[in-house]
């Protein structure tokens, strides 16, 4: 049967027409074999533009369409839907990209037009060989897994649960809440972090739709969107949570009296080997740290904790447990690590007392912290002068180039709290004040009004003179070096990707951007999606964020998950590979190269075969198969060669 192709050339306003002679393209198209009709139009994607094509399809019984316009990433779907509506298989469409690949990158009209002709010739040659394909459909498991239970993970889990779907919430820490649980008051409104936060953690524990796994990590993820299989490893806490009442009797009894630095208190207080991270922890259970526990690390202890526990909850025989689950979708919300200021030795962190990180300041200032909220020096006295140093480990080529976004505000919040509590003289050493959020400039103004000194210059180093800490910098607005004596220096340490980010990225098959954080599918238009269908991102694991942005992104990720789960089934592109059993020699090269483990070997027949559900259509097998047995829909040998030939003739 003779093929009837319609060719449409878009001006894209002047985006294309200014550089490419569209009318010449129309004339040229009409000369190509198979082309029944060719037209140009100002905006093909507009309604009148589409109507024009529809009318032609009906009047000229077109069966294939070539659109010469912008990148297929922009409007392929638009025009495929058009074909579908007109009863033509959407895979009989081809887009010739004459904008990004031609008009935008050239100036010479004549040469650009010639290049556009080549692109168009290739597109027409290819469309002749294109085949009708049908999309595949799969069912979707009506449940989700959220990895990381900071404010991002909690918000996402609660949203999904309130939509009536099951959520598995996994955190590797023994408690939920992440960093927000450590904060004192929050900028810019100064509401107390635990007051706004505790109701949410309590709700997580109470909600029947949410199954919580703490002290757990995700070991393996297989399957695909709608049908992920996950293996969760529950690490032993050596306390039976079903029995533990959280009374704390064991803590007192533990023989490790001198204790070890408490992680939750950022090393500002000590804990025993068996401990409850903090009094409002959810779940409120004791856990044993196997590193510091004498019995577990040295093999010998009187086990006074076991004696003390009236509930008989302590169980040193507990082993790790692996749980398998099936979920339709996944949200990753693993948060951040604070920058380690030891990497910048000029600031004397770890050398001197009273140089602390901003997170340590949060604990110092928190009513539940080691000083019950009083801001005191190591020796128990009240500081008379305090310095806050911005951009430590951020905006710095030697460490991290990105701006951590929250530390200007966090520093100013802490300056306010410190002023209020100590009356000390306070200095903020900054490069630029990044007060971008709602109410943030207003907060900045307020803090200035409170009499805090802002010195525009980055702290260069800290040393000691006459028993006081000296912060050396330049007041760049005056152009004079300054050395300011203080009693307490708070390093505004930035937010960095978590230490185990690479491992997590590999487990879930997602990528990371140059700054180390997980990469979104599109920085503007798909900020919570990843390149893996069905896996989404929320919170600081994608990049530094304040709490408002974290919560907003978490809700967005939850919405994506719910719309996916609500659909009940998903359509998957039919552009996948298949292996011709007649041609396959069983060499297994394709199995080796397939990045998605989508090819299995049929032992009985001695040949390879593609698992349709797993294949993502990357084409690796097609390229490597020496026998041309592997073939990819929509990218067949004939189609690709026709296109190449079109380009080079």
């Amino acid at each position: 049967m003779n093929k009837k192709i319609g060719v449409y050339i878009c001006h894209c306003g002047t985006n294309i027409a200014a550089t490419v002679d569209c009318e010449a393209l129309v004339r040229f198209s009409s000369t190509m074999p198979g082309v029944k009709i060719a037209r140009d139009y100002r905006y093909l994607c507009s309604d009148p533009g589409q109507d024009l094509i529809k009318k032609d399809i009906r009047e000229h019984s077109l069966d294939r369409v070539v659109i010469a316009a912008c990148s297929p990433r922009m409007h392929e779907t638009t025009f495929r839907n058009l074909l579908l509506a007109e009863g033509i298989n959407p895979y009989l469409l081809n887009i010739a990209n004459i904008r990004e690949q031609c008009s935008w990158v050239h100036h010479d009209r004549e040469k650009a037009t010639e290049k556009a002709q080549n692109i168009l010739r290739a597109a027409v040659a290819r469309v002749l060989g294109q085949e009708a394909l049908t999309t595949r459909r799969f069912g979707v498991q009506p449940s989700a897994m959220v990895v990381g239970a900071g404010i991002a993970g909690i918000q996402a889990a609660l949203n999904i649960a309130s939509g009536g779907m099951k959520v598995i919430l996994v955190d590797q820490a023994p408690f939920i809440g992440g960093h927000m649980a450590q904060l004192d008051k929050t900028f810019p409104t100064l509401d107390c972090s635990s007051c706004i936060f505790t109701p949410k953690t309590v709700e997580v524990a109470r909600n029947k739709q949410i199954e919580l796994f703490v002290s757990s990590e995700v070991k393996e993820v297989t399957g695909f969107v709608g049908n992920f299989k996950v293996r969760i490893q529950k690490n032993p806490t050596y306390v039976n949570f079903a029995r533990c009442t959280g009374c704390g009797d064991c803590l007192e009894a533990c023989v490790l009296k001198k204790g070890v630095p408490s992680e939750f208190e950022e090393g500002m207080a000590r804990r025993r080997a068996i401990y409850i991270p903090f009094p409002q922890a959810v779940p409120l259970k004791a856990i044993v740290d196997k590193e510091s526990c004498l019995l577990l690390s040295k093999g010998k202890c009187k086990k006074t904790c076991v004696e003390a526990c009236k509930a008989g909850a302590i169980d040193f025989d507990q082993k790790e447990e692996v749980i398998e689950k099936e979920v339709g979708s996944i949200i990753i919300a693993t948060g951040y690590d604070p920058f380690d200021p030891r990497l910048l030795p000029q600031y004397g962190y770890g050398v001197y007392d009273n140089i602390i990180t901003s997170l340590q300041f949060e604990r110092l200032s928190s009513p539940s912290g080691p000083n019950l909220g009083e801001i005191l020096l190591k020796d128990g006295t009240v500081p008379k002068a305090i310095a806050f140093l911005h951009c430590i480990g951020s905006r710095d080529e030697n460490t991290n180039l990105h701006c951590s976004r929250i530390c200007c505000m966090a520093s100013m919040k802490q300056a306010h709290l410190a002023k209020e509590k100590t009356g000390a003289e306070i200095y903020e050493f900054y490069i630029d004040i990044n007060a971008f959020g709602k109410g943030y400039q207003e907060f900045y103004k307020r803090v200035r009004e409170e009499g805090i000194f802002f010195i525009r210059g980055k702290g260069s180093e800290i040393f000691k003179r006459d028993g006081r800490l000296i912060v050396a910098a330049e007041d760049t607005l005056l152009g004079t070096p300054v050395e300011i004596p203080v009693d307490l220096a708070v390093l505004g340490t930035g937010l960095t990707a978590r230490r185990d980010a690479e491992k997590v990225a590999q487990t879930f098959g997602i990528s990371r951007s140059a700054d180390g954080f997980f990469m979104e599918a599109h920085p503007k238009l798909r900020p919570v999606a990843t390149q893996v269908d069905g896996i989404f991102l929320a919170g600081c694991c994608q990049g530094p964020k304040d709490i408002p942005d974290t919560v907003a992104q978490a809700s967005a990720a939850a919405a994506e998950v719910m719309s996916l789960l609500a659909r009940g089934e998903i359509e998957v592109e039919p552009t996948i590979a298949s292996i011709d059993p007649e041609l396959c020699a069983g060499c297994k090269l394709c199995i080796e190269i397939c990045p998605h483990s989508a090819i299995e070997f049929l032992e009985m027949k001695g040949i390879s075969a593609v698992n349709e559900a797993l294949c993502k259509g990357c084409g690796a097998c097609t390229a490597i198969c020496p026998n041309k047995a592997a073939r990819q829909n929509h990218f067949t040998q004939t189609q690709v060669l026709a296109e190449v030939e079109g380009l080079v003739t």
Partner: protein
Amino acid sequence: MKIDPKTFIKDFQLNFCIQCGTCTGGCPVKYRSPLNMRRLVRETHLTDNFSSISKRAELWACTTCSTCSLRCPSGVKNVELIMGIRNFLANKGEVPSTIRDALENTLLQGNPWGRFRDRRADWAKDLGVKIFGEETSETLLYVGCAPSYDPRVQSVSNALVSILQKAEVDFGILGKKESCCGNEIRRMGEQALFKKLAKDNTALFKKSGVKKIITISPHCYNAFKNEYPDLNIPVQHYTQVLADLIESGKLNLSKGLEISATFHDPCFLGKQNKVFDEPRKILASIPGCDFIEMDRSRERSLCCEGGGGRMWAEGGTEGKRNGEIRIREAVAIGAKTLATACPFCLLTFEDAIKISGLADQIVVKDIAELIAESI
């Protein structure tokens, strides 16, 4: 070669600067001269009248300690900028006269002081040291200019020779054929002379069959390790060698010294090349040595002002010298010996001790001298 200051923007990435002042805030001469690195970067970036900038006396106050460029968050090449401006001046013959003399001396005699080339190895005459060319060895002890000619620093060269001999290390020196490494020459702006020295020295080392280099000065160490383009011979500062010898038991420190000592990190050894632990390990292994750390140590060590051609510059600075501040700091923590491992540090501290009148309270010693005393 003509230098076009317009290329400075690109060469030294001046347009990356975010004007944060980290450079100026940490500069050891910030209170000693009007030099303001942050402002210099911006002025050089924006100026239409470069020669008015290049005339400023304070450009010669910079010690090239590199604190600024090491801490710069934006990748500005601050020290290279200083060297670039000095290079511009050197090409126009506009460097201060004392600097010009040092440069000319190096061209003629192979050392900035203009002492006779032929007398470079006089210090080693009776020490039984192998001389490359006369005898063979694989390890070169590259002596350097100050350790060859300056009587105070010759004592360090002597000490090191006796230590290496005691540890039965097979090594030789180049004798009269040795020439300046060029590290300070480059920093005073004579890039062309530096290139020549690097080329000639490299050829000489290779011809002499040198397989490994030990230096006395961290400045020579820096030049060989980081700035000789085609050397490809492993180089160690002598503190690294001694630390190894002590650890492997080849060097025994038998005599107790009963001293309380502190250590001043030379900028070219510590900050710039991250050799912090070896000198401390050596001091700690001297029997009877009570090691006390100064507050400003390691990456925060306060530059002694001996580098970057400051040994030959006159004026450009005012107020109390860092050397003096350093001596007082050492005295204040109860140290009776200020140890260091750099000829320039040694000389600036000797001066500072005299000026501050603290000679009865503290002495300055090179680590090599202390070790020689304790074997």
